[in-house]
C-alpha cells in the first residue's frame, strides 16, 4: 500500500527535478549500472571459471595420484598407496583423499587433521565431481590398461576459492566506486554544455511568463537544436505579442457578449419560472377537477343505487345531492306541461334553508327565449345569468330578488322529447360552470329521464295488468252466459216439444174424431195446423241439434271418408233421378265421426232436396293444400244468388218459401258450426241455374294413414254415372 502511494510521488519528484540534475542522474545511472553489470558479469564469470579451474585442477591431482596408485593396487600394496596419497598433503586445500578398489573396499586414505570434510562413502560417489556447501569432491577412475581397478576420490575445501572470490568482489566494488566518483565529477562539468543554454532559455521564459513582458528576446548561441529552440521561442514570443493585443480586444468583445447573454438568460429564466408556476397551477386545477369528477361520479353512483319507487322522494334526494355536490344555493326539477305550455316545478331545494318547495310555474309565453334555448340546446350554462340572453328574461322577476347570479339549466329529454329541465342556481359571486359540472348536470338530467321513463313504464304495466284482469273476468262471464244460453236453448227446445207433440196428437184426434163433422174449409185449416205443428217440431229438432253441437264433446278419431260416404248415401236414399258420385281414394281425416257424417248428410241432403233438374248429379271430391284438406260437394241444382251467400249459413234462413219445401233452415248453420269447431271453414260457390258447390276444409293432423291423399287423379267411384260436376 505504502509503496503504491510512494511510486507516483517518486515519479512526480523526478519529473520536477531540474534538468541539470536529471542529466547528471542519467549519466550516473547509465555509468553505475554499466559498471555494476560488468562487475556482476565479471564476478559471475570468475565464479564459474574458478569452479571449473578447481575441478580441472583437482582432477589433475586425482589423475596423478591415480597413476601413482595404479601399481600399488595392482600389487595390493596399500602402504605404498597411503604413502603416495600423503604426498598430496602439500596442497593445503585438499582435505581428504581416498582410494577404493573396484570391489568397493577402501584401499588407502589420506585425511587432514582437524578437517570438517567427511570421508566420502564409496556407494555415494559422484560420477566425476560434486560441489557440496564447503567442499568439492572429485572422483577419478584408476585404470590398468583398459580395466578399471579402482577409484580415487579427493575432497578439497572451497575456502581458497571463496576467499579469492571475496577479494575479487571487493576489488570490483572499489573500482566501481572510484569510477563512479570520477564519472560524477565529469558529468557535473559536462552536463553544462547541454543544460546551460536550456536553463538560460527557461530563465527567459520564466521572466516572460512572470512579468508578461513579451518584448524580451532570448540570446542565440549556436545553431544546434537548442539554438533552433531559442529561435522558435523568439518567434513564438513575437506571435504571442501580436496575439496578446488581439486577445485584449477579443476579450472586451467577449465580455460584452457575456453580459448580453446573461441578461437574455435571466429573462428566459424568469419566463421559465413563470411557466412553471403556471403549469403548477394548471396541475392543481386538474387535480381539483379530478377530485370534482370523482365526487360527481360518487354522487351519481349513489343516486343510481336508490331504487325508490316514489318519484317525488327520488327527485328530492336528487336535488339535495346535486346541491351539495355542485355547492349551489338552489337546485330544482321542472316538468313540462302541455296545456298551457309551461314548466311546473316538481321539486326545489334550497340549501341554505334545507327546504323543499314545489308547484311554481313558468309559462312559455312569458319566457320565450328561455324556452327556445332549452328546446334546442343540450345544456344552458349561464355564467352570468343576468346578462345572458337566454336567461335574461328571469332578471326582474326572479334573479334579482333571489340574488341569483349563475344558472345551469339542463333539459331533460326522453326519446328526443323535452320532458322538463333541471336547474341549478348559484347565488353570491358569479360562477363559471366547468365542463365536468355541466357533464354532471347532463348525467343528472339523463337519470331523471330514465326515472321518468321507468315510472311511466311501471304505470303502463300496472294499467295493462288491470285491463287483462278485467278481460279475463269478462271472458269468464261470457262463457258462463253462453253456456246458460245453450242450456236454455236445449231445455227450451226439449220442453217445447212435449206440448207441441200434444197439439199434434190433438189435431190427429180432431181429424179422426171430427173429420166428418168439419166442412172443407175446416178440414183444410186442420191440415194447415198439422203442417205447422210438424214444421214447429222440425225447427225445435234443428235447434236441439244445433245446440247439441259443442255441448257434448266426443273424442275425435280417424275417419275414412271412403267408407263414410256410402253410409251417408244409403241413409239419404236419394231418388232415382239423382246420381251421387265421389272420388276414389278420398283421404282419412281426424274428426268426430258422427259430426262428419252430419256435415255430409246436410250438404248432400241439401243438394238432393233442392235438385230441380230431371237428371240430378251430386259429386264429392277432395283436394289438398298446405296443411288442410278441402272437401267439395258439387251439384247441378238451382244455384244460389251471390247476394245470399252470407245469409244461407245463418240459422232459420231458407231461400225458398217455407211451404214449398219442408226446411228448417238450420242445416247449413249446423255444418258451419261443426266445421268451424274442427278448425275449418265453409265456403260456397254457385251460379244461378247451373249448380252450387259447397266446400269445407279440415286441417291435417298427424295421422298415420294419409298415403292416399297424394293421388290427384279423379276417377269415378260410383258405377251409376260417369259425369263430372264441373
Amino acid at each position, binding site marked *: 500500500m505504502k509503496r503504491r502511494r510512494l511510486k507516483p510521488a517518486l515519479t512526480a519528484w523526478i519529473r520536477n527535478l531540474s534538468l541539470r540534475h536529471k542529466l547528471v542522474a542519467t549519466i550516473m545511472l547509465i555509468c553505475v549500472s554499466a559498471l555494476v553489470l560488468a562487475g556482476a558479469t565479471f564476478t559471475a564469470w570468475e565464479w564459474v571459471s574458478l569452479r571449473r579451474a578447481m575441478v580441472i585442477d583437482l582432477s589433475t591431482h586425482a589423475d596423478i595420484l591415480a597413476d*601413482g596408485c*595404479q*601399481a*600399488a593396487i*595392482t*600389487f*595390493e*600394496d596399500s602402504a*605404498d598407496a597411503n604413502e603416495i596419497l600423503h604426498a598430496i598433503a602439500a596442497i593445503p586445500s585438499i582435505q581428504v583423499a581416498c582410494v577404493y578398489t573396484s570391489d568397493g573396499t577402501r584401499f588407502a586414505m589420506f585425511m587432514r587433521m582437524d578437517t570438517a570434510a567427511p570421508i566420502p562413502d564409496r556407494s555415494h560417489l559422484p560420477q566425476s565431481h560434486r560441489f557440496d556447501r564447503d567442499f568439492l569432491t572429485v572422483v577419478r577412475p584408476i585404470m*590398468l*590398461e*583398459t580395466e578399471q581397478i579402482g577409484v580415487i576420490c579427493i575432497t578439497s575445501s572451497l575456502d581458497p576459492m571463496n576467499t579469492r572470490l571475496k577479494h575479487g568482489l571487493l576489488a570490483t566494488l572499489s573500482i566501481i566506486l572510484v569510477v563512479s566518483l570520477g564519472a560524477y565529477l565529469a558529468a557535473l562539468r559536462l552536463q553544462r554544455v547541454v543544460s546551460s543554454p536550456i536553463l538560460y532559455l527557461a530563465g527567459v521564459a520564466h521572466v516572460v511568463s512572470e512579468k508578461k513582458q513579451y518584448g524580451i528576446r532570448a540570446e542565440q548561441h549556436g545553431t544546434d537544436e537548442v539554438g533552433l529552440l531559442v529561435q522558435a521561442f523568439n518567434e513564438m514570443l513575437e506571435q504571442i505579442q501580436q496575439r496578446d493585443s488581439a486577445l485584449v480586444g477579443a476579450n472586451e468583445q467577449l465580455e460584452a457578449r457575456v453580459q448580453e447573454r446573461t441578461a437574455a438568460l435571466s429573462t428566459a429564466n424568469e419566463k421559465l419560472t413563470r411557466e412553471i408556476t403556471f403549469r403548477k397551477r394548471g396541475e392543481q386545477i386538474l387535480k381539483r377537477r379530478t377530485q370534482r369528477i370523482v365526487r360527481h361520479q360518487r354522487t351519481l353512483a349513489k343516486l343510481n343505487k336508490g331504487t325508490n319507487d316514489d318519484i317525488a322522494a327520488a327527485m328530492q334526494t336528487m336535488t339535495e345531492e346535486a346541491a351539495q355536490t355542485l355547492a349551489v344555493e338552489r337546485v330544482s326539477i321542472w316538468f313540462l306541461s302541455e296545456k298551457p305550455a309551461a314548466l311546473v316545478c316538481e321539486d326545489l331545494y334550497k340549501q341554505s334553508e334545507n327546504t323543499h318547495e314545489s308547484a311554481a310555474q313558468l309559462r312559455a309565453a312569458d319566457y320565450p327565449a328561455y324556452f327556445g334555448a332549452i328546446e334546442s340546446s343540450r345544456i344552458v350554462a349561464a355564467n352570468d345569468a343576468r346578462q345572458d340572453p337566454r336567461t335574461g328574461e328571469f332578471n326582474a322577476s326572479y334573479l334579482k330578488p333571489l340574488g341569483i347570479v349563475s344558472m345551469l339549466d339542463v333539459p331533460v329529454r326522453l326519446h328526443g322529447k323535452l320532458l322538463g329541465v333541471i336547474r341549478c342556481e348559484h347565488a353570491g359571486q358569479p360562477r363559471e360552470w366547468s365542463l365536468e359540472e355541466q357533464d354532471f348536470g347532463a348525467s343528472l338530467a339523463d337519470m331523471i329521464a330514465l326515472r321518468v321513463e321507468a315510472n311511466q313504464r311501471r304505470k303502463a304495466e300496472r294499467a295493462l295488468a288491470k285491463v287483462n284482469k278485467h278481460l279475463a273476468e269478462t271472458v269468464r262471464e261470457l262463457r258462463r252466459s253462453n253456456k246458460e244460453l245453450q242450456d236454455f236453448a236445449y231445455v227450451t227446445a226439449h220442453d217445447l216439444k212435449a206440448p207441441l207433440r200434444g197439439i199434434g196428437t190433438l189435431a190427429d184426434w180432431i181429424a179422426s174424431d171430427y173429420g166428418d163433422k168439419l166442412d172443407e174449409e175446416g178440414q183444410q185449416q186442420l191440415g194447415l195446423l198439422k203442417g205447422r205443428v210438424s214444421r214447429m217440431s222440425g225447427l225445435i229438432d234443428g235447434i236441439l241439434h244445433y245446440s247439441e253441437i259443442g255441448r257434448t264433446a266426443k273424442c275425435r278419431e280417424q275417419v275414412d271418408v271412403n267408407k263414410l260416404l256410402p253410409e251417408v248415401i244409403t241413409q239419404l236414399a236419394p231418388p232415382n233421378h239423382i246420381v251421387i258420385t265421389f272420388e276414389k281414394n278420398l283421404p282419412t281425416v281426424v274428426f268426430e265421426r258422427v259430426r262428419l257424417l252430419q256435415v255430409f248428410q246436410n250438404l248432400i241432403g241439401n243438394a238432393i232436396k233442392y235438385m230441380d233438374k230431371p237428371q240430378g248429379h251430386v259429386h264429392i271430391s277432395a283436394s289438398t293444400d298446405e296443411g288442410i284438406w278441402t272437401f267439395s260437394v258439387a251439384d247441378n241444382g238451382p244455384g244460389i244468388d251471390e247476394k245470399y251467400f252470407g245469409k244461407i249459413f245463418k240459422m232459420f234462413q231458407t231461400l225458398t218459401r217455407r211451404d214449398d219445401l219442408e226446411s228448417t233452415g238450420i242445416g247449413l248453420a249446423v255444418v258451419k258450426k261443426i266445421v268451424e269447431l274442427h278448425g275449418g271453414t265453409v265456403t260456397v260457390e254457385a251460379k244461378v241455374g247451373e249448380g252450387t258447390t259447397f266446400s269445407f276444409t279440415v286441417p291435417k293432423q298427424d295421422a298415420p294413414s294419409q298415403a292416399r291423399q297424394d293421388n290427384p287423379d279423379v276417377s269415378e267411384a260410383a258405377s251409376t254415372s260417369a259425369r263430372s260436376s264441373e
Partner: protein
Amino acid sequence: MMNKSVYIFAVLVMSWLAFATGRTLCAQETPSKEYRIKAAFLYNFVMFVDSSRFQQPTRDEGEGEGEADPNKPILIGVLGRDPFGQSFEALKGRQVRNRPVVVRRFKGFEAFADADGRTPPRHPRQNTIEECHVLFICASEKPHLKNILDPIRQRPILTVADTPGFLETGGMINFLIEDKKVRFEINTVAAERAKLQIRAKLLRLAKRVVKNDSNSERDNKERETEDEET
C-alpha cells in the same frame, strides 16, 4: 518323540558335513590363495615391464624386431613341479596388453634325470621355453637354477620364482611373504641384461632391489671385450 529324534539326527549330520567340508576347503585354500595372488601378479608384471616383445598388438607394424609379435599370445611358462593348481583358471580369458595369455607348463629337470639321478644340463624343451615371455621357475628347480637361467640370460624373458636366493642366481623377480602378504624383490641388473625395462612403479613396490648378482662380473667382462672390439 519321533520328530525330535529326527531333528537331532539332522542337526548332527549337518554339523558333521559343515565341519568336513570346511576342513577340506581350508586344506585346499591356503596354498591356493597364495598362488592365486602369485598367478595374478605374473599376469600383472607383464604390464609393468617394457620390452619390444611385450608391446601391445598393432595392425600396421610388421615383425619389428623379429621376436616381438604383438598378435601372438603372451606365453607364461611354468617350469617344474606346478604349485598353482587351478589358480590360472580364474584368470582365463583375461588379456594383457590386449593380447591373450597362454600358460604353458614344463616338466622340471628331475623328470629328465637318468638312472643315476643326474639331470641333463639342458632342458629338453629349451627352445619352447625360450619362446615364453614370462617364466616361473618353481621351487623344485632350485638345484637347476643355473642351468635354467644361464641360457636365457640375455633373452627378454621375465624370470620369476619364489625361491630365496633366486635374484643372486640371476633371476629377475622373486616372490616372498611379508606380513602374510605376497611381496616381491627385483634384480634390475638381470632385467637390464635381458633388455627388459622394469617400470619405476613396480620398482617402488619391490621390497628389495638387487643391483648386482653372480653374473655381474661376467657382464663387465663382456662389456669390456665388446668395447675393445669396437
